[in-house]
Each structure stands twice: as C-alpha cells, then as structure tokens.
C-alpha cells in the first residue's frame, strides 16, 4: 500500500495555477523525486505537502491520514513532516547540538541528549556539537540540516534542492551519503531538484514536472530509456533525435539501419505500420564505437569526461549523433571512426522535436 499519496493536487497563487492536478504515490521507505526546470512548480508541490501552501484542489494523504484536501488543512507543525531547505536554514544563533535538539523540545533532557548525540554520531559530527553553523563547511551544514529534520522521527522527510548551494564534487558524494542516512533511518522522503544526476543518484521514483504538471512518474531507468515525451527525453539525459520511418511491427528504419524494438512498440500511435515518419531518440550509450563495424561517422567535436569521451559525430547522411566512448579511444576531430548501434529500447515520437532536441549538454 502506498504511504504518501497525492491525488489531483493543485496550488494557485492569486488565480494563477502553479501546480495542476499533481498525482503520485510513494511506498514507505522509498525516496521519490520531483525533477524539473526552475519554475515548473516542483518546490510549490513540496511546500504543499509540508503544509506551507493550501491546496486549491486535490488531496494529500500520509499513512492513510488526510493532511490537506477539501475542508482539511493540517498546519505544518502538526504534520510530523521533516524538511531540509535549500539554504539549509540552520539556526545561526544556536549550536549544532541545539539545532538538532530543536525539534525535540518537550522531551526530557536526558532522552533528548541521547538522541542528539546518536544523530551527531550518525552524521559523523559528534565532536562538533558545540560549534555554530557558520563554523562548519557546506557539506557539514547539509548533514546537520538532515539530522535536525530526522530528530523528531518524522513520518516523511522533504528535501528542497538540498545540494543546490554545494559545489559539484561535494554534491555527488553527499547525495549518496544522504541516501544512505535516509535509508538507515528508514525514512520515506521526497526530494526536489533540477539536477537529473542528483535525482538519479537519490531516488527510487522520479517524476518529471513541466509547467505545474507531472509529465511522467517512474523509475530512473524507465525515464531514461522509455521517456514518454520529447520533453522528458530531452530533460533527462543527453541524446539526439534522428528522423526515421516505421516499417513494420516493432521496427523503425533510420539512416543507419533498421532498429528492432525488444519490448515496447516503437511508435506511440496506433495504426501506423505503413511508414509513419517519426523521430528516434539515440542516447550517447546507444552509439557504440566499433572499428570493425561497417558504419562510419566523422568526429566533429569531443569532450573529455575523464573515464570517457563524449564524441559528437556526423554520419554520411549529415545526421549528428552523440557517442560515449571509453577514454582510451582517443580520436582526433575530423577522423572517421566505425560505429555500431546498440539500442535496447527504441524511443520514437511523432512530433518532430527538431534535429537535436537534446544538445551535448542539456543540463541547466
């Protein structure tokens, strides 16, 4: 049974709808993520779950209790939902230990102290309890914010762009760390981010939002390999669209050959066997470097990524492709290399989204 359920949730500010008909559910102990460009309503959705915004329509349920909905609006302080804010929002006038203890007011001091030291140990800051937030590094502040949110034993933890104020290196490491901390606490959590890598690293379920609506909700793997719309394909991961034609049951012909879909139908529209024009998504990992392959493409640009190169290739027919190649295959720009297509899931859309809807770097 689902633990957190959103059912047609809408939020409006002064007649302007910011979140429209948002529905998803999350099982206990899972981490969900709302992913989308800035201004897509993801933070508002999170604030609505926390109780900071009133619902214009729909319902939010947690463990079967209605938190918000028609005629119901439980104030934030009664929801038992912990929240980690974008800028951490640690209390600067209180020490680290006092920050963590803040949500435990009302408990007897010995029990409170025990819980605080237990949490500080979990986040590896047992010695920093007497420090003030400004004396900590960004990553440490982040962990204190999480410990503070977890302290009262919330039923749900919400994280609003938790790593936005940290640098890229730290972000990667911390997202794994935070995931482990949440898992250790057995917490159910919802995270909001515009960063696909963060979403994939942290979440079991990811929802892509656009203009207040949830476009797709699913496992990261499915979002990446089975995007339901060009927008999702573009926003999640890199890739290019190449023109193609549906030639038969489960097959699409593109310039580089025929692609046979293993699982899903290649064409989203039915009654399309007779040669519909489609655009086909090719991810950088779909295009494999293989010197023995008969297909050739010219290197027009390359980006060194450490472990691999991201090559931008041009085919004889003028199509641009992206290819991810282990970095010991170092080819010069202008060189012609052999490629092979290795497409598990053929993703094709009817509306031509433009030749390179997903550029070499579509991350914001």
């Amino acid at each position, binding site marked *: 049974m689902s633990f957190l359920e959103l059912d047609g949730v809408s939020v409006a500010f002064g007649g302007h709808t910011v979140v429209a008909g948002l529905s998803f559910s999350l099982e206990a102990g899972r981490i969900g993520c709302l992913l989308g460009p800035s201004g897509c309503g993801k933070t508002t959705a999170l604030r609505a779950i*926390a109780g*900071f915004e009133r619902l214009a329509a729909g319902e939010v349920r947690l463990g079967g209790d209605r938190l918000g909905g028609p005629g119901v609006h439980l*104030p*934030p*302080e*009664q929801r*038992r*939902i*912990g*929240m980690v*804010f*974008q*800028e951490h*929002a*640690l*209390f*600067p*006038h209180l020490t680290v230990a006092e920050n963590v203890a*803040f*949500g435990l*007011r009302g408990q007897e001091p010995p029990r409170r102290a025990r819980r605080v030291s237990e949490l500080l140990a979990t986040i590896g800051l047992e010695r920093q309890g007497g420090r003030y937030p*400004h004396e900590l590094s960004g990553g440490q502040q982040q962990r204190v914010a999480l410990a*503070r*949110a977890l*302290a*009262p034993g919330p039923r749900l933890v*919400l994280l609003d762009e938790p790593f936005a104020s940290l640098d890229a290196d730290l972000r990667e490491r911390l997202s794994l760390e935070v995931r482990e901390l949440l898992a250790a606490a057995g917490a159910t959590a919802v995270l909001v981010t515009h960063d696909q890598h963060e979403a994939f690293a942290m979440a079991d379920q990811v929802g892509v939002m656009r203009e207040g609506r949830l476009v797709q909700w699913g496992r990261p793997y499915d979002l990446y390999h089975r995007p339901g719309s060009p927008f999702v394909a573009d926003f999640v991961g890199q890739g290019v669209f190449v023109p193609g034609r549906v030639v038969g049951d489960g097959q699409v012909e593109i310039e580089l050959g025929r692609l046979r879909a293993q699982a899903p139908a290649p064409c989203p529209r039915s009654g399309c066997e007779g040669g519909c024009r489609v655009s086909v998504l090719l991810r950088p990992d779909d295009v494999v470097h293989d010197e023995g392959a008969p297909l050739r493409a010219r290197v027009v640009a390359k980006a060194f990524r450490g472990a691999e190169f991201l090559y931008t290739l041009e085919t004889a027919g003028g199509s641009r492709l992206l290819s991810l190649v282990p970095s010991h295959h170092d080819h010069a720009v202008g060189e012609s290399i052999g490629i092979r297509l290795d497409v598990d899931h053929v993703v094709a859309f009817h509306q031509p989204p433009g030749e390179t809807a997903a550029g070499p770097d579509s991350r914001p």
Partner: protein
Amino acid sequence: MYEFDWSSIRPGLPFLWKGMKVTLYITLVAMAAGIALGTVLAILRMAKNRALAWLSAAYVNTFRSIPLVMVILWFFLLLPAVIERIFSISRQEDTRLTTALVTFSLFQAAYYAEIIRAGIQSVKSGQMGAALALGMTNGQAMRLVVLPQAFRNMAPLLLTQTIILFQDSSLVYVASLADFFGVAGIIGTRDGRQVELYLFAGAVYFVACFILSSLVKRWQNRLKGHA
C-alpha cells in the same frame, strides 16, 4: 567681554547627579517599554489580519509625524486629567515623572517598531519554515528563532535610537521636570550662570553620546564582519 565663572558647577554636582538619575531613569524605562511595545507593533504590522496591520501602521505613522515636544505637552496636559478621572488620584500627587515615562515609552515604541520590523524582515523566511517544520507553532518560531536573530542583527540600531532618546529626554524641561538638563537650568538661573551651566550640560551630553556611538559603530562593524 563676558567673564566665565565656573564656580557654580562644583557645589551643584550632587543636584546635577540627581537630575542625571532622572534622565537615565526615563531613558532606560522608555527603552525597555518602547522595545517591548515596538516588538508587538512590528509583529502586528506584518500580521495577516489587515485591520491589525492597519492599526499598527496608523500608530507608528502618527507618532513619527508629530514633533516630540508637542506630544509631551499634550500628554502633560491631558494625561494627569485622565489618570485622575480613572484612578481618582488627588491633584496633590506629582504625576509628572509617570507621565514622562508613559509619553516617552509610547513615542519611542513607534521608532523602535520600524527598526524591529526591518530586523525581523532581515531574517530569512526559511528560518520560520524550518521552525514550523520542526513542530513549532507560529508564536514559538517567532520567539525562539526569528526574534533572537532579529535582535542580534538590529541591536546597534536599537542602541543608536536609545542614544537619541537619551538626548530627547531633555525635552521634559517643558513640563519643568528636574532631569539633568532641567537641573542645569535651575542652577544656572539661580546663580545667574546659565551660559556656563548649559555649556557644561552640553559637554556631558556630547561626551556620553560620542563614546556610546563609537562603541555602537565598532559593534556594528564586528557584526558585519561576522555575517
């Protein structure tokens, strides 16, 4: 050429000190009461309830738009009558000091309220949200999280306002209350040495305020370096 004669000051010192105690008393009481009332006014002004916000704004704007001397005169003429009617205190009792305390507290509250409002607004909104998410009520969040930070940020400004209050308290002379300035006037008139006494009083005000202002400035710089 005028011959200065400072001989009235030394024997007048005990009397002047008595006056200074009245000045300090008015300053400290008006500061404490003014900040307390000012905090309430500031919170009301930001309240969701439109009527309360309007009332607070009206209070603050009214007091900030009238000269202090005028307020003092009104209160000294009106307040004793009101107090008499309500508490039926006989006219024999001296209500001047009480009136002064009430006047300055109410007047200063309007100025403190604006400083405190700016201080509360200087605290990031995430702080309130974080406190609510940890189970605090609005009142607790305000008291435990927002106000402590607000007061820390604006303490120098509150002190600067208090220095102004310290100077302005001399205006009670219009009600012939014997504060430091009033006493200087009394001694000066008695001995015919008004110039010397007022110069002396001015020097004392200057030294006290200058030292305090310098301390406030240093404090302010330290707070800035901290943030």
